[in-house]
């Protein structure tokens, strides 16, 4: 079969050419695209092209009841859905003056950290795959799946847990769950040396990732970088500690930083955060049984629930960075406006465009994966 339209076209005379990077491309996290202008394999210009995952969440949320949105929000960031639920719930609780029971707060912290673990395993597994090391990805995703099993047990859903609702959480922790979580943590901790051997201290990887997508702390602050990516430039900042929510102020954990600001540093920060998340989870496992009480404060009938007029801007630290919800209520049964500030809306657009300048074609995927950019947060 040789239809006429498959005639080869002559290459442009100059060295400069343009390349579509995505949306159907393994070097792209999710459904996202780049248009890069290359000279040889050096990037002269990169333009993000988003919107492939646009669903109009913010519009949809204005048309649904407060509680119905709970099913909607986790979809905004698929690999790390729990912070979305928690952040949205926190906003409603702030507007509505709901007092979340202590136990629910601890359960939420537990989920958040489980989700962070899962997301980080996924993130550097993905990063490894972009550099051609599929074994790390196989391991990372398989170990993440074990966390998803615990999510399934706790929340009834593997990925979209839809477990946090304004006022608390939907169910209590199942019998024996904490023991199983604890042994999972032991397992994950025992796996960390394996990952170190295979990936983080792998000379080829270090050589590949060092200096890729490097930014200084000043640049990072100027560009609005947050989360692990900011910490990789040496700034010790974490919303969990510096703008505490839930019970993070009662927990003991460190904020790992790196100084390189490049793909390697970002991965090492994530690697260190795995350890910290395990540490937080251990504390939760220890404390949770002693915290008794309800898991949810009484909320009105969801079909007839008017959240009082008001507005709230709540922030949580997701695995990708600073996640914020701006929720406005006019006292109706539906939100008047919900604005989602996903961390990737910075990382995947401006930061990526800037870091890609002058980078090599083979590093674009690395930059994107090392920023852990999550396209649906951009598109919403």
């Amino acid at each position, binding site marked *: 079969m040789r239809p006429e339209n498959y005639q080869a076209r002559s290459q442009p005379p100059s060295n400069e050419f343009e390349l579509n990077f995505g949306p159907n491309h393994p070097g792209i996290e999710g459904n996202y695209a780049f248009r890069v202008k290359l000279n040889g394999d050096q990037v002269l210009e990169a333009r993000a092209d988003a919107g492939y995952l646009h669903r109009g969440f913010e519009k949809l949320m204005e048309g649904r009841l407060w*509680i119905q949105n709970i099913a*909607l929000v986790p979809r905004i960031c698929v690999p790390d859905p729990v912070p979305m639920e928690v952040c949205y719930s926190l906003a409603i609780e702030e507007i509505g003056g709901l007092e979340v029971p202590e136990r629910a707060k601890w359960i939420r912290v537990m989920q958040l950290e489980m989700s962070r673990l899962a997301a980080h395993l996924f993130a550097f597994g993905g990063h490894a795959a972009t550099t051609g090391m599929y074994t790390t990805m196989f391991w990372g995703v398989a170990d993440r799946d074990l966390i998803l099993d615990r999510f399934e047990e706790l929340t009834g859903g593997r990925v979209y847990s839809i477990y946090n609702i304004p006022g608390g959480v939907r169910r209590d922790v199942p019998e024996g769950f904490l023991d199983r979580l604890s042994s999972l943590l032991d397992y994950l901790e025992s796996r960390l040396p394996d990952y170190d051997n295979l990936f983080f201290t792998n000379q080829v990887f270090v050589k590949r990732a060092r200096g890729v997508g490097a930014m200084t702390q000043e640049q990072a602050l100027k560009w609005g970088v947050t989360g692990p990516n900011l910490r990789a430039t040496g700034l010790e900042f974490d919303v969990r500690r510096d703008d505490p929510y839930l019970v993070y102020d009662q927990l003991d954990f460190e904020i790992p930083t790196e100084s390189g600001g490049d793909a390697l540093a970002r991965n090492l920060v994530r690697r260190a955060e795995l350890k910290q998340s395990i540490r937080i989870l251990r504390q939760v496992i220890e404390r949770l049984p002693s915290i008794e009480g309800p898991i949810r404060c009484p909320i009105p009938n969801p079909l007839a629930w008017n959240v009082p007029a008001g507005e709230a801007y709540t922030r949580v630290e997701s695995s990708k960075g600073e996640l914020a919800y701006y929720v406005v209520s006019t006292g109706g049964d539906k939100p008047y406006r919900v604005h989602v500030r996903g961390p990737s809306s910075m990382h995947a657009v401006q930061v990526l465009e800037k870091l890609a300048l002058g980078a090599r074609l083979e590093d674009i995927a690395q930059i994107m994966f090392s920023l852990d950019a999550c396209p649906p947060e951009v598109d919403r």
Partner: protein
Amino acid sequence: MSDIPYKDKGSILRPFKSLQFFARPAVTQPLEPRPASDNYRGFHVNDWKKCIGCSTCQKVCDNAAITMVRVPGLPEDPVKGIRNERPAIDYGRCCWCGLCVDICPTGSISLTTEYVHTCREDELDSYFVLPDPNGIHGEHFPKGWDKTADADLVDLERQPMGELPGEERIDSFDEIVEGYTEQQAIVEASRCVQCGMCHDACPTHMHAPEYIRAIWEGDVEEAVRQMYRTNPFSHVCGRVCTHRCESACSIGRRGEPVAIRWLKRYAMDAVPDLRIREIAAEGKVDYISGRRIAIVGAGPAGLTAAYDLIRKGHKVTVFEALDKPGGMTRYGIPEYRLPYDRLDADVAVITSLGVQIQYNTRVGRDVTMDELRRDHDAVLIAIGLQLGRSTRIPGSDHPQVRRAVDLLRMITRGESFEVPERAVVIGGGNVAMDIARSLARLQKQQFGKVQITVCALEDFEHFLADPEEVTEAREEGIEILDSRGPKEVVIEDGRLTGLKTLGVISIFDEQGRFAPRYDQQDEQFHPGDMVIESIGQMSDVSLLGEELTERLEWNRGRLKVDEDGHSSEPWLWAAGDMVFGPDVVHAVADGHRVAASMERYLAELDSEKQDDGRTS
């Protein structure tokens, strides 16, 4: 980096340590689907025995995935609050959030641990599923996400209604119930899941979901507007209605039903009377039909019919034998339950529309039926049940043996009678409670203490009076005995000293007829100065006159009418308690029904007249 053995350049040999995984087992799961976790959110199942078709799941579904489908053959009973509808789920929409499970008032719907469903393009109909107890593929899977106490989104407890405590209320006829505050009303209204079971169960089909939602939205005027669509006696019904709606309420399946009655009371009280009149007048025709209608009896049935008919532009005259409107709602219900000014307010709305009430006009005495018929196009009799029945036990003809309705009427009218220091009430219905509690107040006022015994035929399991009535009566110091059948009134030296009763073995015989059997050994004596019979009422139909009585058809002492209240005479209708037995809201419903029937009759007359005009 501190906690990993990280060298600046990395290591080329460390990765080879991973070759150990050649010796480690694979972590791969078998190909067959694993069993899901205990609270997994898989496909739906629905326990059809529990499900009442309330469609609450449909309302909470954020994806518009649920369609209600009528399934013939399933039980359907509006009074019990059961519809033969079941939710069908569109798996092309569902997101398995489980909100339908959490909000289900009955707890019938739940999710299973089944999660595999695949189909080809031409089999896409299999995505539209009517969940039954068997699951999507008819295979048994354990339940996953199911109703639990902590996940329940239905608020099972109603807002407490403030009441005067027993000691405070007992010495006056002040209204006991305090009514909801705005905050309470909104919270209580928010419990409603808008299923509409109340609407179906209500005899007059009040738009309860609509007015509850309006109350919740803070729009009480809209609530009143919704009430006046079907009930011009909302003040009365907001206080003394038998609230079948609440029995049918889907929330009541597992918890306390929404306090629909109190919400109605709240909304009516929250709107000024004048504004209510304006709302009631909305939709009244702006012409005069020229038809004249007579209604006998200014009770709920009669006045409701009057309300409907006046809105159609007819001239309506109501003939009332007594000097105040309301009928049995005024003379049968004590003031502490229904303050007269509220009743007056309801009636005032109706009269403000132009209904004329001729008080102190007893038909048969002051005006005859023939005159009514002559002067009007149609006549409705809605005279209620104003005569008490007697037990006819030995001694029941003693003057100190009274009928409850008579006493209640006397209390309302302020007629004086000798309040007994000790009294015995025979009967277990609401009227028995009313008279007992009214007498208790009078006793408290006169003697400072309450000495009343109520002897009911039924046991507490099958009691006729509302439970709250019983509770409140006890709080007021009234002794209530169940399963006591009256034997004889004890009279010593012409003076009544008390009542002897026997224990009840059974009330009905095998055929379900009323034939109480007593245990002759179990005899008790209840001392008292007065015995009050409260075992039922009947209607005084003497006003019809002999000739008319002859002509009409009768059914076991009651006037025989068709389902629209139309008697065998074309111009005569009957409505209310005298047809259906005592119940305010039934009377209202009957009023509407009859008014509609009369309206049709009048329209026929009109068209005949036009035809005549054309032919002539």
